[in-house]
C-alpha cells in the first residue's frame, strides 16, 4: 500500500514538474506570437514616423539650404538642377493620370465581372478569371517594358494622326493607359467577389418580378455589390498612385506643368522620386522623402474621400443590404 502511494507521489511530482515546464513554454510562445503581431502592427506606424521625420528635413535646415514649404506644395516648376522644387503641378498631374486611369478601368472591370459571374458558365468563366489573374500577376517592370515599347508607340501614332508631335510617345495619355491596364485586375477581382457575395434571393426576386437576367445583373446585382466595387476602385487607385517603375519609364518627367494636354509629357510623384538616382546626399536626395510624404498624404486622402463617397452611396440605397 505504502509503496503504491510513494510511487504515486513520485510520479505526481514528476508530472507537476513537466506541467510547469509545459506551462512555461506555453507562456513563452504566447509572448513570441504576441511580439510578432505587435511588430507587424507597428510597421505601418514606424513607416509613417520615420519617412515623415526625414521628409520634413528640407524645410527645417539652415536658411540658404531650406526649401520653401509653400512653394513646394503649390509650385509649378521642378528644376532640381536649379534648386527649384515646386511639387504642386506634380500632385495635380498624379491625380489626373491616376484618377483618369482608374475611371477608364472601372467600367471595364464591372462589365468583365458581370461576364465572369453572370453570363459565362463553367470553363469559359474559369478561363476569363485566369486572364484577370495573369494580368494581376505580371510584375510592374514588365508592364513598364511593354508600355515603353508598345503603348508609347501607339500614342505617338495617334498623336501623328492629329498632327501633334510627342516626345516619342511619352505622355500623360500613355501613363493613363498603362495605369488603366494595371488597375483593371484589382478592380475586376474585387467586383467579382462582391457580385458573388450578393444573396441569391435578390437575384430570384428580380427574376420573379419579370426582369430579364441581364436587367437583373445591371440593375440589381451590380448596385448591390457596390461596396466591393468601391473597395476595388480604392485599391486600384492606391496602386495607380504608388506605381513607380513602370510609370517613370514613360512619364517623360516634365519640368513644369500641370500638363493638361494628354499628348504632353508629364511627371508624377513616383517618377519624381525615381529621377536622379545617382545622388546619395544633399537636398536632391532628401527632397525625395518629402515627395514620399506627399504621396502618402495623397493616398490617405483619396482613401478617405472614396470611403465617404461609399458611405453616402450606402445611405442612398439603404434598403438594399
Amino acid at each position, binding site marked *: 500500500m505504502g509503496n503504491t502511494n510513494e510511487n504515486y507521489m513520485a510520479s505526481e511530482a514528476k508530472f507537476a514538474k513537466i506541467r510547469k515546464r509545459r506551462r512555461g513554454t506555453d507562456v513563452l510562445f504566447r509572448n513570441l506570437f504576441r511580439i510578432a503581431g505587435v511588430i507587424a502592427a507597428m510597421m505601418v506606424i514606424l513607416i509613417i514616423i520615420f519617412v515623415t521625420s526625414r521628409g520634413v528635413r528640407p524645410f527645417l535646415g539652415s536658411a540658404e539650404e531650406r526649401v520653401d514649404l509653400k512653394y513646394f506644395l503649390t509650385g509649378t516648376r521642378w528644376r532640381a538642377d536649379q534648386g527649384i522644387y515646386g511639387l504642386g503641378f506634380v500632385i495635380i498631374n498624379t491625380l489626373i493620370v491616376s484618377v483618369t486611369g482608374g475611371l477608364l478601368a472601372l467600367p471595364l472591370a464591372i462589365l468583365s465581372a458581370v461576364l465572369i459571374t453572370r453570363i459565362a458558365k463553367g470553363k469559359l468563366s474559369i478561363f476569363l478569371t485566369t486572364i484577370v489573374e495573369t494580368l494581376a500577376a505580371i510584375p510592374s517592370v514588365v508592364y513598364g517594358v511593354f508600355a515603353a515599347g508598345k503603348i508609347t508607340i501607339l500614342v505617338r501614332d495617334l498623336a501623328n494622326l492629329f498632327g501633334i508631335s510627342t516626345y516619342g510617345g511619352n505622355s500623360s495619355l500613355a501613363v493613363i493607359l498603362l495605369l488603366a491596364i494595371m488597375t483593371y485586375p484589382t478592380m475586376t477581382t474585387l467586383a467579382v467577389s462582391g457580385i458573388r457575395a450578393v444573396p441569391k434571393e435578390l437575384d430570384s426576386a428580380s427574376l420573379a418580378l419579370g426582369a430579364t437576367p441581364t436587367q437583373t445583373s445591371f440593375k440589381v446585382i451590380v448596385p448591390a455589390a457596390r461596396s466591393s466595387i468601391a473597395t476595388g476602385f480604392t485599391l486600384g487607385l492606391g496602386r495607380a498612385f504608388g506605381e513607380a517603375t513602370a510609370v517613370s519609364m514613360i512619364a517623360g518627367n516634365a519640368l513644369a506643368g500641370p500638363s493638361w494636354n494628354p499628348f504632353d509629357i508629364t511627371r508624377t510623384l513616383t517618377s519624381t522620386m525615381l529621377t536622379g538616382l545617382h545622388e546619395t546626399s544633399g537636398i536632391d536626395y532628401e527632397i525625395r522623402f518629402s515627395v514620399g510624404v506627399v*504621396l502618402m498624404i495623397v493616398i490617405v486622402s483619396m482613401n478617405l474621400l472614396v470611403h465617404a463617397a461609399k458611405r453616402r452611396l450606402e445611405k442612398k440605397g439603404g434598403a438594399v443590404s
Partner: protein
Amino acid sequence: MTRIRKIKDTVMQSFTWIASGISAWVLVAILVFIFSNGWKLLDRSVLFGDYHAKNIVSGFSDEHDVNATFTPPEPLEDDEVISTRFGFAVRDEIDKEKNHVHTLTWVDDHSPLRNGKITTAGPTQGKPAPFKAGMNINKLVFIDGSGEEITVGRFKQQSPQEWIPILERDAKQITEFHGKEPGGGMRGSLVATLMLIGLSLLFSVPIGIFAAIYLYAIAKQNRLTMFVRSSIELLAGVPSIIFSMMGITLIFPIIQLFGASGQSIILGSLTMAVLLLPVLIRQTEEALRSVPSSYAQASLALGATQTETLFRVVLPSARNGIFSACLLAVSRIIGESAALIFTMGTAIQDSPSVGSGATSLAVQIYVLMGGENPNFELASAISIVILILVLALNLTVKVVSALSDKKGKA
C-alpha cells in the same frame, strides 16, 4: 419580353464581352511583345553570362605540335572559318552594339587556345583563361618560321577569311591572344534575386507565421486586435516605393550597427521582409482558419498544451496554405522593383554578395530601360524569365489549393 428589351439586353451583354475581350487582347499583346523581343536573345550566354563584357589577354608558353590537325565535330556552316592546325573556328558577327566581332564558334578540347594564361597584371595574372566558343577574338599574335612576331585579327581590320589562312600557313606558335567575353547576361541578377528570396523569407516567414498565429489563437475580439488587423491592412496598401524609403530611414540605421554600409542585398531583404508581412499574415491566418477546430479540440482534450497543439496539429494541417503563402511571397520578391531601387542600388553586379549592392532581375530591367537608348531586347529576355517564374509560382499555388480542397472534401 419586348423587342426593345431584347435589343437592350443584347447590347449590354456585348459590352461585357467587349470589356473582357479588351483585357484578353492586352494580355496577348503583352506576351507577344515580350516574347517576340526577348526570345531570340534568350540563350545560355544571356541566362548564365556576365553582364559586363570582360577583356581577356592570354599568353601561351607551351610549344605547339606543328603537325597537329584537328577536325571539327560536326560540319560547320559556310561563314565559319576553320583553323585545322590550331583547332578552332571563327565567324564574323554583328554584336549587340552593332559592331563586327569575330566570334569563336568551336574550340577543340586539345586546342592550344585552351591553355592560355592571363597576362594582364593584377590578382588574376597567371590564372588559366581557356578560350571557349562564344568569346570574341580581337587580336592574335604568333611567331612564324623565322621567329618573327606577327599580329593578325580584327584588330588589323582583317576578316576571318583573310587572317586564318595566314595563321595556318605561317604560324609556328601562338604567343598572345586578345579576346572579349561578351556581356549582356543576367547571371549576377539571377544570383542576387536568389539571395534576396532566401534572406527575405528567412526574416519574414517566422514573423509572418507567428503574427498569424497571434491573430488566430491568442488575440481577443477587442479594440487592440482591431487595431492590429487594420494596421496590417494599411501596410498592405503602402506603395512599394515608400517601403524603399522606410528601408533607408528605419532599417539602414539598425543594420549599420552590425557594420553594414550603404545599399546592400541585406538591406533590400529586410525591406522586402516588411513588405511581405501582410501577404504572409493574411494567407497564413486563412490557412489556419481552414483547419477544422475539432483537430485542435481533440489535441487539447488528449492533454496536449496550446503550444503542442499549434505546432504539432494545427500548423502541420495548414502546411499547404502556408506553403502557398511562401510561394506568393517569392513571386512578389521576383517582381518587385521600386522597393529595391533605393535599398539595393542600381549597379548591376556580376558576382553579387550579401553585404554590397546588386540588382535583382526586375531592377536590372529597370536599369536597362533607363537612359537614352533602352535595351529592349535584353529587358524583354529578362522579362520572359520573370514572367515564366512568376506565372509558374502562381500556377503552383492554384494547383496546391485545388489539391487541398479535394483532400478536404474527401
